[in-house]
């Protein structure tokens, strides 16, 4: 992982406040837990029916019946609980999920999120993404600032089918921390070595820049 991505993950870990119930999307978001202290009070939720996700396990130590929603073999912690898929999403929809960190194909400056379908190319189904994005109390995106071809993922409006409308509150990228505000994107922090001009060039919508010093991460 690049240095900027590592710092993005470490920075995003600060989203997690003590006592939260948190769902971490597959991929980079799951790595934020590596930046939390051992005694940090938090509950990790997995859509397939688990609160209290423990460490990932190597194949030779795995329990064949214990996976997370991404299919990784995980363990329990003291106080873990298993439940069925209906209860799992009851928790999501009823406001008990304080935070979700999700990946994205596109995020619009009004908080729209597209992260499940690229028509004609990638359409495996949304799984639980729509409910996570639509109902978590706080929806935060973690993504590279641009796609593999260098095109911006932070846009004026999403071009892909939506996952949820107007729900993204904040975006962590390898270039910046950007909030979604009533006035659109607002820069909060810059990655070390990134200038405002770099950010503007890599972003597909206007970004409000603070007048004061811009913190770095």
């Amino acid at each position, binding site marked *: 992982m690049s240095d900027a991505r590592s710092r993005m993950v470490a920075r995003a870990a600060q989203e997690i406040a003590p006592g939260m119930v948190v769902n971490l999307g597959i991929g980079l978001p799951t790595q934020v837990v590596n930046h939390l202290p051992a005694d940090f009070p938090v509950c990790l939720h997995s859509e397939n029916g688990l609160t209290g996700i423990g460490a990932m396990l190597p194949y030779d130590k795995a329990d064949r019946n214990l996976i997370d929603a991404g299919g990784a073999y995980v363990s329990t912690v*003291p106080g873990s*609980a298993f439940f069925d898929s209906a209860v799992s999403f009851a928790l999501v*929809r009823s406001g008990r999920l304080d935070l979700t960190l999700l990946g994205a194909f596109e995020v619009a400056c009004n908080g729209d999120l597209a992260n499940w379908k690229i028509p004609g190319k990638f359409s495996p189904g949304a799984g639980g993404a729509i409910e996570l994005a639509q109902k978590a109390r706080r929806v935060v995106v973690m993504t590279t600032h641009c796609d593999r071809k260098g095109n911006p993922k932070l846009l004026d409006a999403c071009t892909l089918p939506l996952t949820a409308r107007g729900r993204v509150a904040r975006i962590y990228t390898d270039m910046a921390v950007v909030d979604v505000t009533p006035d659109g994107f607002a820069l909060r922090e810059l990655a070390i070595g990134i200038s405002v001009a770099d950010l503007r060039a890599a972003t597909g919508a206007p970004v409000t820049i603070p007048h004061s010093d811009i913190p770095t991460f």
Partner: protein
Amino acid sequence: MKLPDKTLNIPDAIAAIPDGATVLVGGFGVPGTPFTLLNELARQGQRDLVLVKNDANEAGMGIDHLIGNGQVRKLIVTHLGLNANAIAAMNSGALEVEFCAQGILAERIRAGGAGLGAILTDIGIDTELANGKQLVEMNGSAMLVEPALRADVALIHAAIADPFGNLGYAATARNFNPLMAMAATRVIVEAEALVPLGGLAPEAVETTGAFVDHVVELTEISQEYGIVRR
């Protein structure tokens, strides 16, 4: 990481309930009724409450104290059969009572806990329980819209809890408790036994602590929880 600790004392847990709150109360008859939490609510005297419970307990116990104190504005219930006080309060107009079919009350609370808007059902069609309810046509049949029921507070009785709020219930003391424990902004649990994290196996947890806000341990099991000799 470790799971958060939600243990609290009884007065502070109940003090968070404001006047006018809608309160879900577990229990079917004696089993599963959170008598200790209810007694503290009677002592603190919050008023203008809307209570949701399967039944009205019996005279002299449980929510009957709250009804007797005039703390209850409205009761949503499936039957009052064993509590003559509650029936009298209803008949005199002192207590507003809304009756709901038992399984539909369970489903409405569950729908609240599941973040749904409503369920559609034919239960109660052709009866007076359908009066005044919204109808939707589905595949040519009329269905009643039964709105999700979510509350400000749920008062839950569990047999066993850990500090995170993972719960286990005893026998038929389960009843409405696991449903109500999902369906309130503030879920307060009294537990007969509090075990450390890990003291409940993950398979044995009947309500995940992710739904629970406060856990209080009962220091004594008072007479109200005991056998009723009728």
